[in-house]
């Protein structure tokens, strides 16, 4: 930003006097801030939410400004998520980053070379975009244009509306490597009904005195959702619930919650889930009535699970048998309901969806579906979520069915494409075959918001795909060479505190979000960018003429089409408090008995058999194994011992650290100071064998190449596994990962490589 140099920032006061006065710089507690004391302008408070990480709902924030400058971040106070973490607090720095992208830019040299950028006007940017896209649409069809979002997730609904209004079904998000595989696993169990599958897949936190067992499986909320940890720990201290934590690392979630920790070999989770099922079935500790009445394929499932004895599973998972036995004893003796909490860790295997099916099958097996303390579904869910808006607003319901045959992903991943619920507002192109789409001429151009080529294995193939497109424009906060060296045009996006879209929703409570400041430079909110492009493409009416009222118009339309009965004016009047949409009836449980789990309102589920499918008739229809089979990882010391001779370490990537969310926040000084370099974590034994100490420069190699990182010797990882954090420009671990995909979901296998680490 041009206006925050040392010279131009008015220095309001110097530190004065003794400690007490100096230290009273505190607007939080209504005491005078000496730095502000001489300013007569009033303190201004704005209410918003945090977007530094990407879970939903968001954490609430109260911003304290004076003279239009942001001084402090506090808890919002009237919100469900109130404990802000380091990343959230550091947002105060990011918004003032002098390196931000402030103007639309077009490149002046060929793609593939370090970008040379020339500032252009928004008018020129929008007319160029319209000309390129409409020309492709005319010559080749609208479906040749892909529309993709990365992080933040917030503009998805606006970009969907743009894509489907334009006539392309090929809208995709970074969720085609993230949450949607766990949702897909639940669609195979309960049927392709987004509203049900997404809620079950989100998992549930244990309810004190109701939940008997909680399994935290491949997730570490201490670092991925710190706001939730004290609540979880309090629930543990108060309740009778036992906690099983499954994670190849020793995380703070382990030491905060675990009654037993199973530190398994990466990629063997499916075997453990089948072992749990087998133990429950053998002990008769499952819900026979539910299984009898509401499930399909139990005999075949139970028969398959028999292979996974505690002894054999301990061997597969490479953990002490007594650890698994202890977990099994907890499951069998504690009884139901149980909850599972997971994240996007294990779909990052070639057999990820099936492993997830094995885990999620424990919920119906124990009768933990939609009962208090189990995985309960919200009563009367609203036709609205924070990311995709409403199915009417985002046009998925109205326009997508007619465009379905123009999806470019079905020939690669038909289960993924066919399980989409357009009526429920879904539209998710599987983005992982992007190089193939471009190679084959299926995709010729792209509009991208916040996309990063480093997220894909063999990044260079995705960079080439961008480069080979006839035209690609992307909106971002920064110029990021790893991606932007391969694109034609950049648009400056407003950051979180500079925009008002989207609305926030917690269960049934809606909140408005106040912009705290004007966008820096000529940055525009992403909802407005979508509307402005829409208008330029000729959809004046669909996007309300674009312009400065675009965000408000989008929110009005989302509210109007959500059926929640709350108007924009009512929300404005209530703000910063939210408005709770009242229930029409009493909350019900076991709603599969009363039609909630099917769109036609009949009892049962939307699967081919109308029941919960332990054995998937959907998968059988694709000639795939219908059982929740366990398979060894494609690359592992067991499946490829000849590769493991030279590359003996399991390459575990994609996990979270407390100071960064994926590739974000490297430019935020407070956070960067906490982890300045790409870190490769090795166990003390693995390090000793290689003569490596903490701080050494190391080379991490696979059959596909090598990258350089700094070693961190730590006992949080297993001796046979290294933990390499992703998203580093100078050490992009995805360059050494293979493009192996789960045939069901199309997900890449970020967690099953083999590698070697040597001291440089």
């Amino acid at each position, binding site marked *: 930003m041009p206006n925050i140099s040392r010279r131009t920032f008015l220095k309001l006061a110097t530190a004065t006097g003794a400690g007490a006065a100096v230290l009273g710089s505190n607007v939080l507690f209504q005491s005078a801030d000496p730095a502000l004391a001489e300013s007569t302008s009033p303190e201004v408070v704005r209410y918003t939410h945090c977007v530094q990480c990407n879970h939903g709902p968001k954490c609430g924030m109260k911003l304290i400004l004076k003279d239009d400058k942001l001084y*402090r971040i506090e808890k919002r106070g009237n919100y469900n998520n109130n404990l802000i973490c380091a990343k959230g607090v550091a947002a105060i720095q990011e918004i003032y980053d002098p390196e931000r992208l402030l103007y639309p830019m077009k490149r002046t040299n060929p793609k593939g070379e370090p970008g040379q950028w020339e500032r252009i006007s928004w008018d020129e940017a929008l007319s160029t975009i319209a000309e390129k896209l409409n020309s492709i649409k005319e010559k080749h069809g609208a479906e040749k244009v892909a529309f993709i979002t990365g992080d933040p997730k917030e503009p998805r609904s606006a970009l969907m509306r743009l894509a489907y209004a334009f006539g392309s079904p090929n809208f995709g998000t970074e969720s085609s490597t993230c949450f949607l595989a766990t949702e897909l696993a639940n669609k195979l169990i309960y049927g392709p009904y987004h509203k049900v599958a997404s809620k079950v897949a989100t998992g549930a936190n244990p309810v004190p005195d109701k939940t008997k067992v909680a399994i935290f499986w491949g997730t570490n909320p201490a670092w991925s959702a710190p706001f939730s940890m004290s609540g979880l720990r309090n629930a543990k201290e108060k309740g009778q619930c036992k906690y099983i934590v499954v994670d190849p690392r020793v995380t703070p979630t382990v030491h905060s919650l675990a009654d037993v920790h199973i530190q398994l070999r990466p990629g063997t989770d499916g075997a453990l889930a089948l072992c749990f099922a087998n133990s429950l079935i053998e002990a008769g500790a499952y819900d026979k009535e539910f299984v009898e009445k509401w499930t399909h394929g139990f005999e075949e499932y139970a028969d398959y699970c028999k292979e996974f004895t505690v002894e054999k599973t301990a061997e597969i998972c490479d953990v002490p048998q007594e650890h698994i036995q202890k977990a099994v004893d907890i499951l069998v003796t504690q009884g139901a309901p149980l909850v599972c909490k997971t994240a996007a860790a294990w779909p990052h295997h070639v057999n990820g969806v099936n492993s997830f099916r094995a885990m999620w099958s424990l919920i119906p097996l124990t009768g933990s579906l939609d009962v208090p303390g189990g995985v309960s579904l919200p009563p009367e869910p609203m036709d609205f979520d924070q990311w995709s808006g409403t199915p009417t607003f985002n046009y998925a319901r109205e326009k997508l069915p007619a465009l379905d045959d123009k999806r470019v992903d079905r020939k690669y991943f038909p289960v993924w494409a066919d399980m989409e619920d357009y009526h429920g507002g879904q539209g998710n192109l599987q983005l992982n075959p992007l190089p193939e789409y471009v190679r084959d001429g299926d995709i010729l151009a792209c509009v991208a918001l916040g996309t990063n080529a480093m997220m894909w294995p063999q990044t260079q193939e995705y960079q080439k795909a961008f480069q080979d497109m006839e035209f690609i424009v992307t909106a971002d906060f920064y110029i990021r060479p790893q991606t932007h060296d391969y694109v034609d045009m950049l648009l400056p996006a407003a950051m979180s505190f500079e925009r008002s879209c989207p609305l926030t929703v917690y269960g049934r409570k809606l909140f408005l979000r106040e912009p705290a400041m004007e966008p820096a430079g000529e940055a525009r909110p992403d909802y407005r960018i979508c509307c402005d492009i829409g208008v330029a493409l000729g959809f004046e009416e669909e996007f309300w003429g674009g312009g400065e009222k675009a965000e408000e118009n989008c929110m009005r339309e989302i509210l109007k089409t959500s059926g929640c009965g709350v108007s924009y004016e009512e929300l404005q009047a209530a703000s910063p408090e939210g408005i709770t949409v009242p229930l029409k009836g009493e909350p019900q449980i076991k709603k599969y008995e009363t039609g909630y789990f099917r769109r036609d309102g009949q009892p049962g589920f939307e699967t081919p058999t109308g029941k919960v499918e332990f054995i998937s008739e959907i998968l059988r229809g694709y000639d795939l194994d219908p059982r929740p089979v366990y398979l060894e990882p494609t690359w592992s010391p067991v499946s490829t011992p000849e590769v493991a001779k030279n590359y003996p370490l399991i390459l575990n990537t994609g996990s979270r650290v407390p100071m960064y969310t994926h590739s974000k926040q490297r430019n935020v000084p407070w956070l960067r100071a906490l982890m300045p370099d790409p870190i490769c974590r090795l166990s003390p034994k693995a390090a000793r064998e290689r003569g490596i100490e903490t701080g050494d420069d190391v080379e991490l190699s696979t059959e596909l190449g090598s990258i350089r990182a700094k070693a961190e010797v730590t*006992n949080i990882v297993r001796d046979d596994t290294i933990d390499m954090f992703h998203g580093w420009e100078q050490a992009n671990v995805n360059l050494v990962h293979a493009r192996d995909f789960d045939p069901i979901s199309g997900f890449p296998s970020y967690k099953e490589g083999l590698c070697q680490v040597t001291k440089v």
Partner: protein
Amino acid sequence: MATYGMVLNLDHCMGCYTCVVACKMFYGTRPGVDYNGVVPVEWGEFPDAKQRYQLPMCMHCIDAPCVKACPVGATYASEEGVVLMDYDKCIGCGDCVTACPYDARTLVTDDVTSFPGVVLPNEEEASDRLNIVEKCTFCYGAVKDGGTPMCAVHCPGQCRVFGDVDDPESEISKYIAERNAVRVEGTHIWYVAPADMPDEFLPKDPVTTYLAKLNAK
């Protein structure tokens, strides 16, 4: 008269660094000038390996060596036991830094800000200070008005409890009693440690800590 203290619940700490960043936000401290920290410590081996965190900060010693070491009276203790700095008196000699057993003081020598050449709004005050010593203040300005230190306000693990240890009805007094928190002798800090945390990682009194610091050198 109140006596201020803080409990660090090391059993609840999840190593998220929010206390560090919240402090930097509040005081706008320069790069490298941190009033507190998070230090992972480890013991045990697979499959029983453990990692926990130490939370170094000014321990607000009762008979503080830094106060004695200061030749100009810039370092002083408030009547509530909080060790504070008078920046106007500080001559930047660094004697207090040497004297501090806990390495909890920083002599600010580099005129740098987070983004080179730029002063962010929250850095306006701290960027005027140079060649003086800075340290944790228990957020004295806030707590005098009944507030809470910023590291405790923003701790998502809720593992820091602050208050008047003279008042048996205060939150901190009750917390100390309920959780059997251990006082770091000679300081205003208490802790609750994980049951299996080796003694070597637990905070010690100023003399023991100072001797260990000398031995390490």
